């Protein structure tokens, strides 16, 4: 399968990339890892007139903890997340998710920024970001702006990234208390989109009270979904079996899955309930160990 014709540019600086995006107009697309965009172009679901390849721009791939944030450069590859000691020691939700995203070859190229900026509720990082209460840095000719992940997803393939802008960094507040996180998705086979996926992040203080909770859902809602009702149950709770069960129940009730080849609505809600419960227990265990 061959994509429609397009013009290709590979700028070596962000400034140059912004200029090209402005010059080319609405039909230009940004090429990061390319493992969502190129398949769509081959199927001719997408036919941009121009591709602006940002792989040659230095300084967009990094993982650091500074100023109270875990900062991840948008062009950080999935395999770099899998291999980073900062991530594997503390932010287990990424390790869980990275393992389940596509396959090793795709993870060698796929980027975290692309996974989010693609704006697909079936991708895995959006739920992870919602659980971690991330902020996203969007950059353009007028400078940088920070957007809460809660305001980032606008619709199917639509995000807060406006024409001429590039998502450049993801910031996750460094947890202050005991922290645990986990992600799991049910998939029919390696590389499949989630039948349902749940990302969980919690913080627990020294008295065993939950001080922060985030729950994000994959592919069971038109937009990547944060389950506020479940989070509210958990914050201030001692994370009893009952509270966990209630949070899981709310997640299953509040999402809005559609029936497809992966399962019907009831089945998907059931999965959300079971996975939420399991991931909460896993995150609690991780926070305590």
């Amino acid at each position: 399968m061959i994509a429609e014709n397009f013009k290709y540019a590979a700028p070596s600086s962000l400034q140059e990339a912004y200029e090209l995006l402005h010059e080319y107009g609405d039909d230009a697309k940004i090429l990061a890892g390319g493992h969502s965009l190129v398949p769509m172009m081959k199927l001719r679901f997408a036919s941009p007139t121009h591709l602006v390849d940002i792989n040659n721009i230095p300084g967009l791939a990094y993982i650091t903890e500074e100023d109270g944030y875990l900062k991840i450069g948008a062009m950080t590859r999935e395999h770099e997340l899998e291999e980073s000691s900062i991530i594997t020691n503390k932010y287990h939700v990424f390790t869980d998710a990275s393992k389940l995203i596509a396959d090793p070859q795709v993870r060698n190229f796929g980027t975290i920024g692309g996974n989010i900026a693609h704006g697909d509720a079936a991708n895995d990082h959006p739920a992870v970001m919602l659980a971690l209460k991330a902020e996203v840095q969007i950059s353009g000719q007028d400078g940088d702006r920070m957007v809460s992940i809660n305001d980032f997803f606008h619709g199917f393939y639509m995000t807060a990234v406006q024409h001429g802008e590039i998502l450049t960094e993801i910031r996750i507040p460094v947890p202050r208390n005991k922290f645990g996180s986990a992600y799991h998705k049910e998939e029919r086979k390696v590389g499949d989109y989630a039948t349902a996926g749940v990302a969980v992040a919690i913080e627990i203080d020294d008295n065993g009270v939950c001080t922060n909770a985030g729950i994000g859902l994959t592919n069971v809602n038109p937009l990547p979904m944060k389950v506020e009702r479940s989070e509210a149950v958990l914050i201030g709770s001692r994370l009893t079996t009952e509270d966990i069960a209630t949070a899981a129940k709310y997640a299953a009730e509040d999402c809005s899955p559609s029936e497809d080849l992966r399962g019907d609505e009831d089945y998907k809600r059931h999965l959300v309930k079971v996975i939420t419960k399991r991931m909460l227990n896993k995150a609690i265990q991780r926070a305590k160990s």
Partner: protein
Amino acid sequence: MTKTITLKVNGTEHTVEVEPRTLLVHLIRENISMTGTHIGCDTSSCGACTILINGKSAKSCTILAVQADGKEIATVEGLATAEGLHPIQEGFHLNHALHCGFCTPGMMMRAVEMLEKNPNPTEEEIRWGISGNLCRCTGYNNIVKAIQWTSAKMQGKELPSTEPEFV
């Protein structure tokens, strides 16, 4: 509008004129005439087109040729040397790790990167490691054995038996 790109394939530099929409796998097979890299599913699912780009395994049906400008590509043709087969080829040969052979070039290129990063993988790590490569003949067991054999060979360890197991 075409673009001129320069890349190294198995150590040899090539300068090629391509349309931006040309896929890397087509460049390798058609412009450079190396047909060892296969096109299986053409949707980045099967891994038959796996090659190495600057040492990293990649599905060349989902990468544009222009993205490989200035890069070093390794394909299955580059594995064997004048001295003989690469250990992974020897491993696949001795362990009967292929039937029809269609997935083999991609499977071996993937295994090469995996063993480079993790010279002594567990069986589970091997199975995860080749989870992006489909084989419709072998049932994978002999491929896993071949990679285990290669791992031992490359580390100078005692070689596991290559006798087939009859259950």
